[in-house]
């Protein structure tokens, strides 16, 4: 197989200020063969996106390329090609599909026009011909009602359809290489599956190469021929997909594969990168959970949340975010709530913590209906039901020091004798979540995402809660960091007898954490029961669809091949 693209010794740094530069890519070399799918895998900060963008020279204005870096294509060095040459290349020989389709499409032009644009630039078609070809492309990528959709604006399409439009634009001129930069990360699980399959199908049909960038090894295992693993701006390992998954050589690669919660086992702790680096054995002992005996801690009945919108002159339309939710939570156990965007799972968490008021329904806790309490009456209960949010970069006040963040809840609930006492308790909390003492006087922006989530957990613990709602608490974290935070949550549950409501769209993570489970779709609970039962024996069609959509890595690929 000939090499389409050869990246040689790529070095990229960014000028941050007059004196400071930060190096993102520190000397990366790899080849992309023709007619194959190469996956570029790494966590945030690994430099995978920067590497890919270097191929088409779409880097930000403050990027500096290394003097010895070369990217060879068709006998030319792309890094030293003229601006005109690059422009002719982009969209025709090499095209890109980006992560966020909503913001990547121009909001004021119709999708038909945007697809037609790339055809008019490179294929010399007149507007009429370009639109006709655009229609063909939209049909090819599987957009329903393509004739009407041609005149639609991006915001009128769903996320999946927008991404299909992006793909249509990218394949319009029959490129030799398609760079897909995390194309499915922003999409729901079921849609992810469709888009990934579409890209794989197009690759085979057009015999083009695909450079697929992702942090999700499971996804990558299913569709790629070769895998390149990056970390901190360097390539850790390259190889064909079977070798990488079955016999990885590099410790980081092994760690990456292992940290991901497996659908079949529930070890007491998830392995973390640190374990691999230090050669510690992987935990195989299975987790034991508290049994669901006695009265439930929380009983929810008929919980409902409606949003009202103005319609017409005097009318209203009603949107039910959650319809008639009934469930219980037992002490020391984790209730998993799973669903895609719009399922209402986050709203349930908001209602439990009274951050959103329910329209109707009851939340019984220690004999009191929390849904009917006033703000003042609710306050003492707030310390007992806490929440950890999804975005670690937004849930800590950027202007507060860690000390202030940890001590404020204690002050509000009258915990601790005086400021000194509270400070001492805050320091011990830091220790408990695995952060150093000197974090006390620092600001959130000095910490990584995983560390900030730990601070958020410490904040919850300062009030000695009984129930913690984890609303997509690890979804924004890298895989290896996820594992550390999940381990921390499990340790705390064991030590303090905490009960969790674990909300997520990530089925593998929920399978690992949850004892009991709820599956939600469009505001309704479509299936409930023990997590084990649901995963092995799903009843509802939606649940089955959800489970099928989970990327399974190499095994998924094998199964798919067997099915054909």
């Amino acid at each position, binding site marked *: 197989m000939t090499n389409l693209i050869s990246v040689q010794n790529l070095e990229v740094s960014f000028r941050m200020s007059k004196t400071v530069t930060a190096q993102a890519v520190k000397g990366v070399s790899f080849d992309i063969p023709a007619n194959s799918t190469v996956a570029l895998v790494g966590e945030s900060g690994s430099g995978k996106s920067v590497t890919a963008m270097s191929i*088409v020279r*779409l880097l930000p*204005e403050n990027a500096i390329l290394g003097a010895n870096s070369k990217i060879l294509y068709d006998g030319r060095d792309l890094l030293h090609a003229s601006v005109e040459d690059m*422009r*002719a*290349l*982009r*969209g*025709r020989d090499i*095209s*890109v599909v*980006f992560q*966020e389709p909503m*913001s*990547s*499409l*121009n*909001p*004021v*032009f119709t999708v038909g026009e945007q697809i037609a*644009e*790339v055809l008019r*630039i*490179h294929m010399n078609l007149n507007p009429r011909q370009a639109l006709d070809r655009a229609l063909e492309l939209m049909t090819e990528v599987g957009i329903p009602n393509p004739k009407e959709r041609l005149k639609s*604006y991006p*915001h009128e399409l769903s996320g999946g359809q927008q991404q299909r439009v*992006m793909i249509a*634009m990218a394949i319009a001129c029959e490129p030799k290489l398609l760079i897909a930069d995390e194309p499915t990360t922003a999409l729901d699980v079921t849609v992810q599956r469709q888009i990934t399959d579409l890209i794989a199908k197009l690759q085979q049909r057009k015999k083009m190469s695909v450079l697929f960038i992702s942090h999700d090894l499971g996804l990558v295992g299913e569709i790629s021929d070769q895998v390149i693993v990056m970390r901190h701006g360097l390539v850790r390992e390259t190889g064909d997909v079977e070798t990488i998954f079955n016999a990885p050589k590099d410790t980081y690669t092994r760690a990456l594969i292992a940290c991901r919660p497996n659908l079949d086992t529930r070890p007491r702790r998830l392995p973390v990168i640190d374990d691999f680096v230090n050669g510690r054995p992987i935990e195989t002992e299975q987790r034991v959970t508290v049994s669901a005996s006695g009265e439930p801690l929380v009983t929810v009945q008929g919980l409902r949340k409606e949003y009202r*919108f*103005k*319609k*017409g*002159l005097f009318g209203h339309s009603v949107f039910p975010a959650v319809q008639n939710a009934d469930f219980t939570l037992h002490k020391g156990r984790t209730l998993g709530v799973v669903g895609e965007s719009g399922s209402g799972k986050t709203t349930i968490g908001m209602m439990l913590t009274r951050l959103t008021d329910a329209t109707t329904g009851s939340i019984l806790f220690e004999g009191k209906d929390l849904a009917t309490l006033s703000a003042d009456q609710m306050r003492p209960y707030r310390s007992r039901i806490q929440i950890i949010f999804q975005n670690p970069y937004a849930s800590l006040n950027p202007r507060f020091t860690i000390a202030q963040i940890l001590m404020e809840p204690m002050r509000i609930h009258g915990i601790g004798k005086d400021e000194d006492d509270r400070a001492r308790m805050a320091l011990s909390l830091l220790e408990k979540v695995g952060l150093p003492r000197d974090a006390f006087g620092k600001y959130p922006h000095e910490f990584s995402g995983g560390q900030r989530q730990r601070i958020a957990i410490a904040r919850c613990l300062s009030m000695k809660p009984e129930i913690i709602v984890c609303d997509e608490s690890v979804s924004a974290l890298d895989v290896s960091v996820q594992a550390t935070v999940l381990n921390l949550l499990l340790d705390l549950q064991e030590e303090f007898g905490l009960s969790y409501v674990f909300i997520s769209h990530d089925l593998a993570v929920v399978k690992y954490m949850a004892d009991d489970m709820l599956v939600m779709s469009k505001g309704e609970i479509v299936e409930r029961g023990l997590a084990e039962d649901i995963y092995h024996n799903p009843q509802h069609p939606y649940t089955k669809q959800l489970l099928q959509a989970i990327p399974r890595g190499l095994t998924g690929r094998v199964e798919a091949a067997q099915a054909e």
Partner: protein
Amino acid sequence: MFSYILRRVLQMIPTLAGVILLIFFLFKWFGGDPADIMVGLSATKSQIASIRTQLGLDRPVLEQLWIFVQQIFTFNWGKSWATNEAISDIFATRLPVTLTVMIPILILEVVLSIVAGMAVAYVRGSLADRTVMLISTVALSISFLVYIVVGQYVFAFLLGWFPVQGWSDSLWKNLTTYAPLPVFLAVLVSLAPGTRLYRSFFLDELGHDYVRTARAKGVSENAILFKHVLRNAMIPILTNVATQLPGVFIGSFLIEAFFSMPGLGREVLTAVNRSDYPVIQAVTVYLAALTMVINLVTDVLYKFVDPRVVLK
């Protein structure tokens, strides 16, 4: 669409009511007694008496308020206390003068700001960009008054290219002889803030993801700026033009005073100096209503400029 417009008109009512109440009570409580004022303006006893009856000054407050409201909706304000001219006439004669000057200013200002803003955005970060920004900062620090005074002195008085002041009855003569200098000065003054503002619009748009997609498609930088960015920048540009529109109707009283143009702005200025209440009240209320209508029209126009807008 229709229900949206209707709902907005209904929403305008409390605001208009607020303006009416504010103006009425402001002048009632804090203004002087009309009789005293008119005496100062050397009105005759019978004129004063007729004003008193007309405004119902001997009647209860609510009746006076009702009279005020009636005046607004029937456009019948009677006569100016100072010149005895019918107020509706005042509007009819002064407004065209103001518009003759202000409309060219607005059009030129917007067009030049777009051009200048785009040009500077194109060369962003370069020495040219920073020089232009510095010059505009300095230019902004000089008062409009100074521009007019110096401009009038240099271009009209010293160089004699334009008449120092004046106005005529012919629209053509006005546009070609009397309007050019004031228009030129006003546009010159607006160039600095306009360039800065529009530059920020374009730079904002250039930072968006869709520009990156366009580059990935091989679109040229020119096409990106002129087609993709400009089209999106129309949204904040529309907002900006809309905020300036009410000003077009009131006119620039500075320009009208210095160049002796019989426009609405100068009329208001004179009225205030003479405490000619009917004129001030009429102009205020009508301009407030006009501003609200302009806001409504702008919001509807958004729908055509930004497809994402949902009018609800």
